[in-house]
């Protein structure tokens, strides 16, 4: 299939539901990071400045809980959607196989091949719909939601939960909540940004999570496995879509750019604090 250079052909990668969920995830994650990190680095001048800008720890706490509630809603909506696809659409392909987010043997093979490619000792792996680092991103967030969410709820309603669980669990919850948050923030604001957006092939960013569309060329180049599988099944035409409208692409760049700037700024503050200790 040949594609005219001046009119690139687009296919859909993420639907509106997923894109909205990702946008809400971004908002709540940034809100949680901005209101939670000052506590974790409470002896830093910048933490006190953020806290005083927010007014009081009650206000910061309220924003943190509001963001947490939003994130819980996002998580539940996602689970609901996955559940619906399994129960009503019997789409077992999302549990196992090339379209699945679940790690499987080919991911290990892809990782090894990818490292060989880094070292110039082999071709780029024939990635499928989700690469191993994208799966890691997904499951890191999934695991983080469980751990941070559960520990956060314990800390949100300590008197209530203390009726059922031993007191020392709150000590563990506080530690795990903070450390896991540090892991999540550090990972998202450096590795996810690099893997998804900032690496030279994508720099300055990959707007696909905002526009939901990629060109067929991109699909062929980056995910040859998915391209070949879809093309063989004759599904490319079904995925074909209009180019993203300019306003959407621009909105994606602005939103993503702001998030990257805030994220890298927060990482800078964390590094400053950690290296000074």
């Amino acid at each position, binding site marked *: 299939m040949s594609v005219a*250079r001046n009119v690139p052909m687009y296919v859909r990668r993420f639907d509106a539901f997923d894109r909205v969920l990702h946008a809400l995830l971004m908002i709540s994650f940034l809100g949680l990071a901005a209101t939670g990190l*000052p*506590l*974790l680095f*409470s*002896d830093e001048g910048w*933490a*006190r400045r953020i*806290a*005083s800008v927010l007014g*009081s*720890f*009650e206000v910061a706490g309220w924003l943190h809980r509001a963001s947490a509630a939003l994130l819980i809603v996002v998580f539940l909506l996602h689970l609901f959607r996955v559940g619906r696809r399994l129960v009503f659409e019997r789409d077992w392909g999302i549990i196992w196989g090339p379209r699945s987010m679940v790690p499987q043997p080919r991911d290990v093979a892809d990782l090894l091949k*990818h*490292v060989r*490619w*880094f*070292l*110039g000792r082999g071709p*780029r792996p024939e990635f499928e719909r989700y690469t191993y*680092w994208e799966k*890691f991103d997904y499951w*890191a967030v999934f695991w983080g939601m469980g751990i941070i969410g559960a520990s956060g709820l314990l*800390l949100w309603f*300590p*008197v209530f939960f*203390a*009726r*059922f*669980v*031993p*007191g*020392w*669990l*709150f*000590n*563990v919850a*506080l*530690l*795990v909540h903070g*450390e*896991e948050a*540090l*892991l999540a923030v*550090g*990972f998202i604001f450096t*590795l996810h940004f*690099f*893997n998804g957006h900032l*690496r*030279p*092939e994508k*720099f300055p960013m990959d707007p696909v999570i905002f526009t939901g569309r990629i060109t067929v060329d991109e699909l062929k*180049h980056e995910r040859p496995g998915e391209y070949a599988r879809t093309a063989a099944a004759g599904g490319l035409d079904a995925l074909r879509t209009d180019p993203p409208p300019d306003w959407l692409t621009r909105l994606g760049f602005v939103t993503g750019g702001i998030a990257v700037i805030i994220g890298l700024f927060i990482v800078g503050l964390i590094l400053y604090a950690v290296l000074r200790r």
Partner: protein
Amino acid sequence: MTLRFQPWILVAALVAWASVPAVAQHGAKAATGPDNDTCLACHGDPAAKSDSGRAIGLDADKFHASVHGAIGLACVDCHVDLKKTTDFPHAEKLAPVNCATCHDAAVAAYSTSIHAAARRQTPDSVAATCVDCHSAHEIRSSKDPESRTYPLNLPATCARCHGDPNIIAQGHIRIGNVADLYKDSIHGRAVSKSGLLVAANCTSCHGSHDIRQRTDPASHVFRANIPATCGSCHEGIKTQYDSGIHGSALAAGSTHAPVCADCHTAHDIQRADVTSWRLSVIRECGTCHADKIKTYRDTFHGQVTSLGFVRVAMCSDCHGAHAIFPKTDTRSSVANGHLLETCRTCHPTATAGFAEYDPHADKTNAARNPVLYYAAVFMKWLLIGVFGFFGLHTTLWLPRSYTARRAHDKEMRTS
């Protein structure tokens, strides 16, 4: 408020009482020299100047209204070397007045003071003598609202030196401008704003004539004497403090046990609800209890207070402020029998399980907090593992991604 018993007041009163008739008699009997009118002929004009230009005038009315004027003391009772003078104007240089002639007890007390010591060491020292606080010719009783030593005026009198940067520098006064600190303290405001005679002024803590250095064990503000000094007004707090572990340690001779001024400061004492002060007390507790403040800062309570907010538990909320007991003491607010009750002051519906939370959990102590310890180890290695793996992954990927981008761009340009 009860009147404070100050031994020096009694001594001063006795001396004054005993010496008044004697002075009066003495004055009358010894009035062999020039009488006051003779002196005032020259000195009665407040603007009078000597040949060398020195101001020598005084306000005769103010002298007559002074304690010395009121009892009819003659000028030459103090300026004794003029008693025999008949030839006027007299010599310009006179012998210094010796207040001890009458006020021997007060001068004896003064001679033990840091002011006297400074003068002994450096004769031209700026250290205060009798007249610096009492004035020379206008001395009034300390009960007289016009007096420089009246309780409401006294801080300003001391501030003449202790609030003057030049004198502080010249006198090498190490503690600096305490007048400024005192002025904004709860005691200073009680004097200046509320006009409370019972509020602590300088002499309440330091004594009046026998002001000694705080390193002198006889000083009212010597470390071990501070609770007694503050307790002369704050008796109820002193009783609590004495019963607690800090008071007991001090009584047993500890030089490290905290005293009132360690938490409350000496001069800048604030109301107990002032945020900045409350936060400073946490740090103060931490100067000795370093391990406890470290674990406290790991908790939500410690983090919130570190950010500058006070609506969460601080040291004294759980341990008490003045009557602090070790956990093993049944009187302690954190003893097993009282702990839940203490938690409930802020968390009213807390249950026994809630009180099992360890507000000083130490993630490095496997014996005290085993689950926390292993959770911390797990989290540490999880972070190291993730960042280590992906750090390396990214480091390898970056140059390869760069060359891939360049190759792709080149291909786009040529096609």
